């Protein structure tokens, strides 16, 4: 069955609500809007949906969405754990279900009110699931603190600097400045703003952190044959992978032999093994950017450069349009919206349809990744 998933399914519809720091509607309503928008984009009736996938952190469950939109009998549903690590896996699970005949029309979605809702880490009562007994009592409280620890070690080991992290923040912001839907549309970032901004967890400053956003997104997955009859050009799921590395400990990874090689490396090995092309053939990348420091680590993990070379890779405009690897062309989690990385998937689809607001001319292949630092997932999409 090797390669059975390759190009067997395609994303044929995408839908998004508005992104804002605060939206009035509840998460469930936003979820339904995004799902219906994606089905409309595909030209597929809600009654045909028979598969759902989302994140375990999604608060609206598939029963509610199916009922609300008028889905028919559902024969496959799946939820993926580990927060932003689950984004690409939702599509991967649907692709596997459709490719193996368990379903015919799948919808993946994420709805989130992180901008106006509570931050999970502010609730003392949920601060200490047992894996956190080794970190949180010492005041290592938030993802920014946990990833900041890896960032400082990375900077120490490889001579990476804040200017390298700025390159990442700037590329995302520049793309958001081209995207009217982005929260940071028309809000340019300068090096001075970056260097003088407040700290969140040294060595990470305000602009190294993703946005806090309300919004919802969805996409529709069908078999390749069906895809040819849909409204939009199909975007094929070429390869997909999840990654939970040996001896991984969520968010921190400090107890691996090598904490700077995280879940990205594990996912990448499987992703490329199943693909007809390699990192050099990727036209545009959507790399999970809850924190800027995750990008150089992911560039290494997914094989765009060697170990320790991820920071240097960002130099010379490599991540900008026209550069070696245009990155997060909608603005990413740093500057478009942070909806647990789902906007990276929809942006990948827009690039391969040729409809991005920061279009890479002729883009035919796109890597999309989910959260690095936690059990993760990734997709290779092709037109």
């Amino acid at each position: 069955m090797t390669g059975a998933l390759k190009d067997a399914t395609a994303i044929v519809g995408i839908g998004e609500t508005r992104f804002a720091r605060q939206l009035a509607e509840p998460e469930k309503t936003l979820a339904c809007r995004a799902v219906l928008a994606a089905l409309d984009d595909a030209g597929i009736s809600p009654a045909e949906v028979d598969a759902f996938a989302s994140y375990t952190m999604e608060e609206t469950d598939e029963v509610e969405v199916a009922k609300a939109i008028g889905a028919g009998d559902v024969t496959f549903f799946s939820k993926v754990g580990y927060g932003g690590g689950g984004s690409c896996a939702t599509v991967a699970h649907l692709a596997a279900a459709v490719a193996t005949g368990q379903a015919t029309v799948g919808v993946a979605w994420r709805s989130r009110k992180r901008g106006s809702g509570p931050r999970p880490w502010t609730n003392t009562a949920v601060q200490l699931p047992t894996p956190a007994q080794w970190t949180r009592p010492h005041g290592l409280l938030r993802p920014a603190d946990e990833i900041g620890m890896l960032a400082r070690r990375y900077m120490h080991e490889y001579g990476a600097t804040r200017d390298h992290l700025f390159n990442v923040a700037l590329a995302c912001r520049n793309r958001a400045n081209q995207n009217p839907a982005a929260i940071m549309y028309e809000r340019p970032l300068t090096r001075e703003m970056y260097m003088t901004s407040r700290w969140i967890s040294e060595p990470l400053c305000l602009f190294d952190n993703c946005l806090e956003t309300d919004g919802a997104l969805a996409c529709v997955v069908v078999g390749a044959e069906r895809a040819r009859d849909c409204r939009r050009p199909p975007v094929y799921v070429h390869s997909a992978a999840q990654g939970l590395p040996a001896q991984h400990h969520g968010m921190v990874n400090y107890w691996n032999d090598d904490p700077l090689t995280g879940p990205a490396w594990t996912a990448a090995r499987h992703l490329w093994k199943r693909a007809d092309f390699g990192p050099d053939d990727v036209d545009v990348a959507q790399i999970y950017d809850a924190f800027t420091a995750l990008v150089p680590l992911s560039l290494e993990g997914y094989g765009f450069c060697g170990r320790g070379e991820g920071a240097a890779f960002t130099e010379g405009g490599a991540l900008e349009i026209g550069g070696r690897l245009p990155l997060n062309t909608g603005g990413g989690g740093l500057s478009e919206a942070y909806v647990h990385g789902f906007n990276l998937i929809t942006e990948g689809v827009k690039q391969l349809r040729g409809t991005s607001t920061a279009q890479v001319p002729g883009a035919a292949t796109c890597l999309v990744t989910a959260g690095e630092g936690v059990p993760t997932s990734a997709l290779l999409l092709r037109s």
Partner: protein
Amino acid sequence: MLEPVTDEDGAPFWAYAARGELRVQGCARCGELRFPPRPCCPHCQSFDDEWRLMSGRGRVWSYVVPHPPLLPAYAALAPRYNVAVVELADAPRIRLVGNVVAAPGAPIDSVDPARLRIGAPVRVSFDGALPRWVPERS
């Protein structure tokens, strides 16, 4: 401040720490150390463990200086407190998260964060059951 929520696997670590001993779980069959604690050995799958006494010496592997917004008790100490990952001298792949403090019993904001360095030698001390790390003269 948050107190550790211990589970059955982690309880021995905290019980030893409360007595001022830094002990790490090891396999009674193949001898490999492991952290965090768990029911069985990832190398040989044995369920027999032993808690090995460490010298308490280590080096700073990395550190952060958190700034608000933080939980209130931590926000009150920020941005003067640090959180470090310390690599144990006896077992470099065993790393512990903790705070570097000026002296045994000193508060977690007692070291100027500007003085912290990756690679700096530190020695364990205990504040209740919480291991803390005191700089050593190298």
